């Protein structure tokens, strides 16, 4: 070692101070002004919106194929549906004009709107809708979500250009709700004749944007549909969209996504995390869109098909042993409200029963004692006949956000006090489905998005415990109750809205009071966007935002 320069040693602390100063100045610059910006001023035409999605890139842009939420998000820009939801949550016609059903509920006539064209020039008519539904029901399409939604269709006839007659195998009062989902959106029948690969690359619809190109692993480029004709005067303006196009990017890392929004590289991000939302709320340059998804609330399901949860007392004890509210409060920064219902709060028929879900370790202890789990082992866990009270909890890291994973860890800690050993297993999605297919779980949290209360049948009907060939089944609490089945069947077929409400309420009561599930909060669907992007907030029936009315201020 030779002639060390004394001044060089001072460089390190100096650099540290500089870095800290830079970070601090970044925090302050994020909250420059506090004046709320209104979406005032005349809309500006032009500009390309860059949207950054945190979801995995879809393998197919046609949401008929498969049918998941990331597909719905992007497809909502270029495909439209027969029905949609208005701002009050009411189902209203969109590409359809209206629809009637026969007295026996077995025939539905759908009137299709006249004069609408797909972006390839093909006209929208009853035959086109028929071709779409056939495409969805064809096993080669491999539709899962759309296929389920149309499951009761037995045959279809295009009576004339604007009239489609649909025969059903049994009455289905959720059909119009099903028609409002992007997974059963209507595509050009001409385009559907192409190969599956081609249609996956560039599906053709009637929407305000169309797919121009898709550079895989990078971005989908959407351009304005210059000939766009609005089906109904529901939106803020007539004519084509203001934006020239949308660049739909995939940025998996949440922190990068938020940094890109702050840096102005993108104007909208989805899957915004609680910490980012809280940080953004301190300033005025980034705005927040909270759009809870319809269908089921996020919940933990208790697998009643095997010990220890085949004993209702143990299920009830578990529900009282976990402190959910404290966890949500500390981990979600006020971005999520506690749910006490199997259904999302945006579902008009959601029924809540708060009193069932109190945090009450004393009661949990009593129930466990009564169920025979009296003794504790050296680690403090309860035992019965030499077996520890252990709960396997496979968690999908792609479906449960970090805050939710932390919530599960907090629940694990509080349940331990009552003597439950929760074994959380963080898994990638394939391995997670693997554990479910093997019935290797006691607790599980799985999202399910669908429009309308009929999601209850998918989640709690005994039919849904029968696995699909891929091993997948939706009834993860594995409740098999003939009374409940009967309730769900009648609720789904009755023509009387009041009776439908009553029956679905009864069904929700049964699963809540049977402690088959622990509701957490609505399925979180948060977007952050630049204040330069105006008139954001319109969403489809599944709460995916549309940017037809949006414009970029200069």
């Amino acid at each position, binding site marked *: 070692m030779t002639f060390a320069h004394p001044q*060089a*040693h001072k460089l390190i602390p100096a650099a540290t101070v500089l870095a800290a100063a830079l970070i601090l100045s970044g925090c302050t610059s994020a909250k420059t002004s506090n004046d709320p910006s209104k979406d005032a001023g005349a809309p500006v035409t032009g500009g390309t919106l860059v949207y950054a999605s945190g979801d995995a890139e879809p393998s197919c842009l046609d949401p008929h194929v*498969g049918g998941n939420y990331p597909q719905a998000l992007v497809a909502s820009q270029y495909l439209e549906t027969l029905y949609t939801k208005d701002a009050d949550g009411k189902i209203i016609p969109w590409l359809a004009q209206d629809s009637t059903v026969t007295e026996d509920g077995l025939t539905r006539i759908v009137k299709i709107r006249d004069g609408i064209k797909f972006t390839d020039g093909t006209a929208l008519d009853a035959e086109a809708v028929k071709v779409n539904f056939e495409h969805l029901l064809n096993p080669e399409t491999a539709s899962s979500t759309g296929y*389920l939604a149309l499951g009761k269709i037995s045959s279809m006839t295009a009576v004339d250009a604007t009239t489609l007659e649909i025969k059903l195998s049994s009455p289905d009062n959720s059909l119009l709700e099903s028609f409002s989902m992007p997974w059963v959106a209507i595509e050009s029948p001409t385009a559907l004749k192409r190969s599956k690969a081609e249609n996956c690359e560039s599906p053709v619809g009637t929407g305000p944007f169309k797919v121009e190109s898709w550079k895989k692993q990078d971005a989908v480029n959407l351009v304005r549909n210059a000939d766009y004709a609005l089906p109904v005067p529901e939106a803020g303006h007539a004519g084509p969209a203001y934006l020239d196009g949308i660049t739909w990017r995939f940025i998996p890392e949440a922190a*990068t996504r938020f940094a890109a929004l702050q840096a102005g590289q993108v104007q909208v991000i989805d899957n915004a995390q609680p910490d980012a939302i809280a940080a953004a709320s301190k300033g005025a340059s980034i705005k927040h869109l909270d759009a809870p998804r319809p269908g089921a609330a996020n919940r933990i399901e208790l697998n009643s098909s095997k010990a220890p949860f085949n004993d209702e007392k143990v299920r009830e004890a578990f529900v009282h042993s976990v402190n959910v509210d404290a966890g949500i409060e500390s981990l979600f920064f006020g971005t999520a409200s506690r749910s006490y219902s199997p259904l999302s709060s945006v579902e008009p028929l959601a029924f809540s029963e708060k009193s069932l879900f109190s945090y009450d370790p004393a009661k949990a202890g009593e129930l466990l004692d009564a169920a025979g789990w009296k003794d504790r082992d050296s680690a403090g866990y309860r035992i019965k006949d030499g077996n520890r009270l252990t709960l396997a909890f496979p968690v999908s890291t792609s479906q449960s956000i970090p805050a939710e994973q932390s919530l599960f860890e907090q629940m694990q800690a509080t349940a331990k006090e009552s003597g439950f050993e929760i074994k959380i297993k963080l898994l990638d999605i394939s391995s997670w489905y693997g554990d479910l297919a093997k019935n290797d779980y006691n607790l599980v949290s799985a999202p399910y998005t669908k429009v309308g209360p009929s999601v209850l049948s998918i989640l709690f009907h005994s039919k849904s415990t029968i696995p699909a060939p891929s091993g997948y089944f939706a009834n993860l609490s594995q409740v098999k109750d003939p009374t409940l089945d009967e309730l769900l069947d009648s609720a789904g077929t009755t023509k009387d809205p009041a009776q439908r409400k009553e029956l679905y309420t009864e069904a929700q009561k049964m699963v809540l009071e049977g402690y088959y599930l622990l509701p957490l909060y609505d399925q979180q669907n948060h977007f952050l966007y630049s204040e330069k992007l105006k008139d954001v907030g319109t969403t489809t029936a599944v709460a995916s935002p549309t940017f037809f009315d949006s414009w970029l201020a200069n």
Partner: protein
Amino acid sequence: MSPSATTSTRQGGALKASLRWLLSTLAGGIFVLWAVATAIFFGIRMIPGDPAAAIMGGPGSQASAEALEAARIEYGLDQPLFVQYFGQLRRLAVGDLGTSYSLKSPVSEVLAEIVPSTLVLAGLALVVAWLMALLLAVLSTRISVVGSAVEIISAAVPHFWLASVLIMIFSTALGWFPPVSTNTPGGLVLPVVTLALPLAGFLGQVMRDSLEKAQHSAFALSARARGESEIGVLLRHSLRHAALPGIALSGWALGSLLSGAVVVESIFARPGLGRALLSAVTARDIPLVTGVALVSAGAYVLIMAVSDLAERLVDPRIGEP
């Protein structure tokens, strides 16, 4: 023996040695590629998930039994495992990488699109790491404590942490560089630095040892005695010695850059081999995983050969009989 005869024998020997080196490198390379293809083939079948379900839209899909069966037949998944294995080896031997399950396009096309992006990233990172390492090595011969501290810290820093900190400072606070990587010079800075810094720390540590030894060696002393300046000694004599272990490690370095690319490409949302590998593994996309692994292994083999060659050029004693 005449001087010319000695030269020609020596040249003949060198030629033979070079040929032997080339053949053994080639054979070694083929062995590595075969081993990688085999390990991937059997390894990916041990993790849970049905490849047929992966083809039909991923896990949780409600594909019918008929659709799954059709996919199995189409992709040959109904065949016995060893038939599939040899079939795959045969196809790989003629350069057929198959079709990606998740992207539904030929793996060779997918790779052609993303490989350049990763090569640019890894190549730049290697160059920058080398420059930084040399600088660190030279610096630390003068101010040893600071140099080695910087080296140790940067060698130990994980990519994801470094990436987050760089984004926080240079994107969010200063706004100098974009957080999402682009192919403009500015858009490459953060990912390249993230990849290069830990590597530079490592290379610098190795180089410093040799450099210090060289600086105190007899030839450095004699060079100084001849009136060579300190800089001249460093540049003309000592650095050459210091570079040797660095070059030898460059093959290993490329391997570390490719694995680092998985993290860096995901964080900076940059298309490339690493990001493709991550999503392919998640989607159980066997052909794409195999393709990415083979390309990485091929690059590794190639850079090993090149660094071996470079070592021979820098130090002519290597490979002499």
